[in-house]
């Protein structure tokens, strides 16, 4: 039966050819009336009587026409459309109102969509691997510390893989690690991910061409590597014959066997050049001390996280019994990979979402306030419409549609602002590696739509209910003789204005705290002179000719070439014209403990811990680190001489508070391996902050690169091979970073053409980077707070303006009765001040509760810093009063005659 199809077809025709349809209906009924009228006249009636008789027989022509038309139309849809058209028409009549409301909402919505885009890219989008929901990470806890989480020992990971049944497979992988690369095409620092051969299959990635690793392909002297698509294009110009090419990765001869598609990248989106195989079952890792690869497991279909956890507990217990020396008290924790990767990012980003929600709330309150005022002025209109028969529901719907139109308009403009917002965010965030994943996708659009509609509902519901409750009599009477609006409406508006100020206060306090933190960070004394110093990173390769592997274990031995390289490099760099001095330092070393000779040795797990840095003796002078006691390390501290150490003040304060540290002898221990010789403390230097937000400096032991053991365990040799060269130029030579970089690179290449130099930057840049997080937060909160302030100012201004307009009549009477301008001014400004004060007071209470969420980014100020609160509060009051100024002045200029005639 095609009935419904006919219906739809006819209805659509009627909808589309609406005008023709109306004319036809007119004709059809016109014909009927003409025929009837003629018949009436033929039966002897006069023209007028015939006409009336016809109408009587036909009934209400308009109504019947309307009924007939209604047969054809999608009634609800049409009246809805009518309402929308009407809303647009009414709104266009007050362009100022429209602009302010739409623009406020757009700012609020745009800010939310921007932050949501970032959250979406980082936290909500599924990971780009096959069935990512089944991927889990498995962490070990440190012995006796239940809440800690660290990567498992490599051999533990291998055992898990063999024993687990809940997991289909378990792979081990590093994050992106810098490695040196040499071969045709020059030396460079490459970014590698070390993975077990099953990694690719586990993640569901297959190569564009070539193959992936076969089991246990990693060897000590040669290996295969799989390269990334960007590296293939960069280093090999996309050469299809790349398979079989070789280069050296950390001194190990490596053959390319496969190229991965661009879809497989690094974990956090940063650049990645290649995957290097690791044999987890190699004897090298049998000591279970190397915790630098994370474990990723793929659950069997249908298996759950808790099943995996239960099974892993059993396995951990088994390993505990098999390897008590390393695994005693070690527990295992299973968690979804996505959570493990992005837990930290969430802590970072959710406070920002809170801030933009705050902005949106201000925008909503602003819009609601304006809408409220407008509803009050339109009460007569609603009353007239209601008395002409408009239903309450229809009136409410009309108002909700109006706010819906406003919300959607705000949303559309907001999307435009989101485009700009994302670019702004990425510009402010600078080194946000996942920048290109932040896009306006369908999810962001849906979010924006939802927010717009929710906003509209929030903003529109109060006026809609009020309009529906309009008391006809009262409203119509008031229309004649206008006095002040109802008490209820005025109170609502005042509450809204107060809320706006309170919310703005929260954001301003947040921004104020961050700005204060940044200012304080910039004033931190780093403990050395960072001006005219440039840094260069270099890392000697972890293979021939600098490192040999000691057979039968995980011991790597540095050859004498390492110290020779350092000594000659320092000489060469110091000889560069314009260089005042140069020093070298290794990255901060964790995992060192020590004992003091002559004191009873504590058990290994109770030994005191210290930071450790290997330096060149020239470093202290090059950086102008102050000597507090004893002497600096010197070139005379050679391998044959007694081994020396310099410690920092914190070390002394913590470990030798009541003794003279000079002359004390320490035995340093790194990953359970004692250094061969004890070291005598020869000097104490001031504390240094390489990382400015550091609160409590760590104790540090500085030792010379010339007095080091040659044997390292578990990758520890990197602490000897990775160096930062710090070069101080003679002041007054101007900006010669480029020249200096060239000279340093030349010096390095002369010693070893395969040795890359990376991360060239001035010390000041490096310090600035260390406060990047705080700066990023400060800038974003500044932007949000500025928007909030603007919106709040508009809100107060709007409220006050309305207040004055509403009372023009009253003010006129007062002026006519002899009130002074000052008292009129006081009337308006007093109210403004009162509202601002209340807003600030509530804002302070809110801020005290809420600024805790950014406490982790604060430096030198507490989350309830009274000075910041006072400054912001006073500032906001000032702006509140200022926003009253124009309306107040207008009030004083009220001409009593005009005012009394006013409506």
């Amino acid at each position: 039966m095609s009935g419904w199809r006919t219906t739809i077809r006819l209805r659509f025709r009627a909808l589309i050819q609406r005008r023709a349809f109306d004319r036809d209906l007119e004709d059809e009924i016109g014909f009927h009336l003409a025929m009837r009228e003629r018949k009436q006249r033929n039966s002897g009636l006069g023209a007028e009587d015939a006409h009336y008789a016809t109408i009587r027989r036909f009934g209400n022509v308009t109504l019947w026409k309307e009924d007939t038309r209604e047969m054809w139309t999608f009634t609800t849809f049409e009246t809805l459309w009518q309402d929308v058209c009407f809303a647009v028409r009414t709104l266009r009549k007050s362009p100022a109102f429209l602009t302010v409301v739409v623009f406020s909402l757009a700012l609020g919505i745009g800010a939310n969509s921007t932050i949501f885009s970032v959250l979406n890219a980082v936290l909500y989008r599924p990971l780009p691997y096959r069935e990512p929901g089944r991927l889990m990470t498995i962490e070990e806890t440190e012995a006796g510390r239940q809440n800690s989480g660290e990567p498992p020992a490599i051999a533990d990971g291998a055992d898990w893989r063999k024993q687990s049944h809940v997991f289909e497979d378990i792979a081990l992988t590093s994050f992106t690690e810098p490695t040196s690369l040499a071969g045709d095409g020059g030396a460079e620092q490459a970014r590698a991910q070390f993975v077990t051969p099953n990694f690719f299959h586990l993640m569901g990635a297959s190569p564009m061409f070539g193959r992936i690793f076969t089991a246990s392909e990693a060897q000590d002297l040669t290996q295969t590597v799989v390269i990334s698509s960007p590296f293939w294009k960069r280093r090999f110009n996309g050469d299809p014959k790349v398979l079989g090419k070789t280069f050296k990765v950390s001194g190990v001869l490596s053959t390319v066997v496969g190229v991965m598609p661009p879809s497989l990248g690094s974990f956090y989106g940063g650049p990645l050049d290649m995957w290097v195989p690791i044999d987890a079952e190699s004897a090298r890792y049998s000591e279970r001390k190397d915790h630098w690869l994370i474990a990723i497991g793929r659950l069997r279909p249908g298996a759950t996280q808790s099943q995996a956890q239960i099974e892993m507990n059993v396995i951990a217990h088994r390993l505990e019994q098999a390897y008590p020396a390393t695994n005693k008290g070690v527990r295992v924790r299973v968690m979804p990979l996505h959570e493990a990767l992005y837990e930290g990012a969430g802590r970072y980003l959710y406070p920002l979402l809170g801030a933009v929600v705050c902005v949106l709330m201000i925008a909503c309150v602003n819009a609601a306030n304006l809408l409220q005022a407008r509803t009050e002025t339109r009460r007569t209109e609603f009353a007239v419409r209601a008395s002409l028969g408009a239903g309450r529901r229809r009136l409410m719907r009309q108002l909700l549609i109006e706010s819906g139109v406003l919300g959607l308009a705000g949303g559309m403009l907001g999307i435009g602002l989101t485009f700009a917002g994302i670019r702004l965010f990425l510009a402010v965030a600078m080194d946000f590696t996942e920048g290109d994943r932040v896009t306006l996708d369908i999810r962001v659009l849906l979010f924006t739509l939802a927010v717009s509609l929710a906003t509209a509902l929030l903003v529109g519901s109060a006026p809609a209910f009020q309009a529906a409750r309009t008391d006809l009599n009262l409203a119509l009477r008031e229309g004649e003789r206008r006095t002040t609006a109802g008490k209820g409406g005025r109170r609502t508006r005042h509450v809204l204005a107060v809320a706006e100020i309170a919310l703005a206060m929260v954001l301003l306090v947040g921004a104020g705290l961050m700005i204060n933190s940044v200012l304080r960070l910039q004033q931190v004394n780093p403990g050395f002179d960072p001006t005219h110093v440039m840094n260069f990173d270099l890392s000697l390769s972890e293979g021939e000719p600098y490192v040999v592997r000691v057979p039968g274990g995980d011991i790597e031995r540095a050859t004498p070439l390492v110290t020779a390289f350092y000594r000659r490099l320092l000489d060469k760099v110091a000889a560069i014209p314009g260089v005042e001095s140069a020093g070298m330092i290794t990255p901060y070393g964790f995992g060192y403990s020590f004992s003091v000779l002559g004191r009873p040795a504590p058990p290994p797990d109770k030994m005191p811990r210290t930071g450790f840095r290997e330096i060149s003796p020239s470093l202290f002078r090059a950086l102008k680190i102050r000597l507090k006691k004893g002497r600096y390390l010197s070139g005379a501290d050679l391998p044959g001489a007694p081994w020396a150490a310099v410690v920092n003040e914190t070390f002394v304060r913590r470990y030798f508070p009541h003794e003279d540290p000079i002359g004390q002898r320490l035995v340093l221990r790194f990953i359970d391996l004692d250094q061969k010789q004890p070291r005598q403390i020869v000097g104490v230097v001031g504390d240094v902050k390489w990382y400015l937000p550091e609160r409590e400096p760590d104790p540090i032991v500085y030792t010379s690169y010339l007095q080091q053991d040659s044997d390292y365990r578990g990758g520890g040799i990197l602490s000897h091979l990775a160096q930062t060269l710090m070069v101080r130029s003679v002041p007054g030579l101007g900006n010669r970073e480029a020249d200096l970089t060239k000279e340093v690179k030349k010096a390095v290449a002369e010693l070893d053409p395969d040795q890359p130099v990376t991360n060239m930057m001035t010390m000041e840049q490096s310090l600035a980077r260390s406060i990047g997080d705080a700066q990023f937060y400060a800038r974003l909160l500044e932007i949000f707070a500025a928007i909030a302030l603007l919106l709040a100012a508009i809100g107060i201004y709007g409220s006050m303006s309305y207040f004055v307009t509403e009372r023009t009549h009253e003010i006129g009477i007062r002026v006519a009765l002899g009130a002074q301008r000052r008292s009129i001014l006081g009337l308006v400004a007093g109210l403004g001040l009162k509202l601002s004060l209340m807003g600030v007071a509530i804002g302070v209470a809110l801020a005290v509760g809420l600024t805790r969420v950014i406490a982790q980014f604060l430096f030198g100020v507490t989350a309830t810093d009274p000075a910041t609160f006072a400054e912001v509060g006073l500032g906001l009051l000032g702006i509140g009063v200022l926003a009253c100024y124009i309306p107040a002045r207008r009030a004083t200029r009220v001409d009593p005659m005009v005012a009394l005639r006013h409506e």
Partner: protein
Amino acid sequence: MKDKNPGELLRDTLDMLVLKTLTRGPRHGYAIAEFIEETTGDVLRVEEGALYPALHRLELRGLVAAEWGVSENNRRARYYKLTAAGRKQLSEESARWDRMTSAVARIMEA
């Protein structure tokens, strides 16, 4: 079938009368009104305007088809004619009508 209120009952009756009228050939609205009024006298007097929503409703349901034609006095008029579906509907309706009236009649005579 769901319950019908009296208004709907009346509406259905009007629909049926229109369909029945059209069994005598295509007619325009005025002619249909004239026919029903003449045939029933003043008994089923409804406002003539009510005919038009009914006609358009029937058209939408595909029970009648409409086209523009020229009337006996040379004016543009909209003519309605019965479709196959309309014929079928009419026979169902009149059967039901017969059952109902005979049932009512039996009660009234009892």
